[in-house]
């Protein structure tokens, strides 16, 4: 996965500057969320436009929430996240996502977003299927069709392979 600035890349202390790629991804999506929200509490899902997200869309995903169900459904996901997860089918339940994938890690804190009703950004490390340590950063934001209940979650995640020194 080379060539794309947002591709998984090698990370180390000497590559601290490149961490800003994940920071820019999160900042950009938060800006979009704030702009769509305006003066209301939550932005509507219908106003999410993948084309407006441009180059960050391959790292974004959307979860659909159904009241009373504990397993949200992954309804949209960018090409890079799908590839990282090994080509999962859409739509699909959250429980079906591989935990050793970027999206599998990024969605873990979705109950917190529903509870707090604000975007939550998390970061950390996890071992991928090849046994490499991946450092990642993610953000997950609530969306609402009626401005009250949370109907969808919009997220983004990016990570890089950590190099042992």
């Amino acid at each position, binding site marked *: 996965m080379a060539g794309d600035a947002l591709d998984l890349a090698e990370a180390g202390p000497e590559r601290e500057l490149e961490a800003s790629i*994940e920071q820019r991804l999160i*900042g950009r999506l938060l800006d979009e969320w*704030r702009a769509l929200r305006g003066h209301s509490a939550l932005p509507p899902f219908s106003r999410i436009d993948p084309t407006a997200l441009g180059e960050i869309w391959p790292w974004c995903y959307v979860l659909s929430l159904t009241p009373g169900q504990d397993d949200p459904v992954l309804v949209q996901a960018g090409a890079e996240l799908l590839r990282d997860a090994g080509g999962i089918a859409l739509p699909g339940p959250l429980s079906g996502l591989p935990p050793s994938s970027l999206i599998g890690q990024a969605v873990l804190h979705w109950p*917190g977003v529903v509870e707090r009703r*604000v*975007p939550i*950004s*998390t*970061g950390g490390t996890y071992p991928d299927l090849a046994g490499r340590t991946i450092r990642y*950063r993610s953000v997950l934001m609530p969306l609402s069709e009626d401005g009250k209940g949370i109907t969808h979650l919009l997220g983004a995640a990016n990570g890089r392979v950590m190099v042992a020194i």
Partner: protein
Amino acid sequence: MVAFELQTYQGGAWRIDSLFNDRKLAVMEAERLSKGDRYSAVRLVEENYDPRTQSSTSKVIFRVSRLQDQREAAFERQRQVQVEVEETNRTIRAAASEHKAQRLKRRRQGEMANWISILVIRGGGILLIGICLLYGLGRLAGKF
């Protein structure tokens, strides 16, 4: 357990904008948000939760307020105006003092001139009277 709460000031109240578990990213986002013009103030609160005691502490680790900046700018302008007023007052007082000194000097010079005039007039009068008396006495002495 540490979390960072990014808050924005809107409609007279602080509102949670987003939550982070990464301090560096939270600070960067707070700085980025504070540079925009969407919010009048931005602050970042560090929340520390101790699961043993089930208590949490919080402290503000970043804060930028456009209102505070405006207040500080207004205070600075007010301070500069005060300095300018004091400077002007000092200049006016110095000019008035100079004017008063010159007036006093002129008055003293005038008084001196008057005093000399009076001295000359009085001296001249006395001299004239003396001459007249001497002349009168001389005439009287000539008769006898």
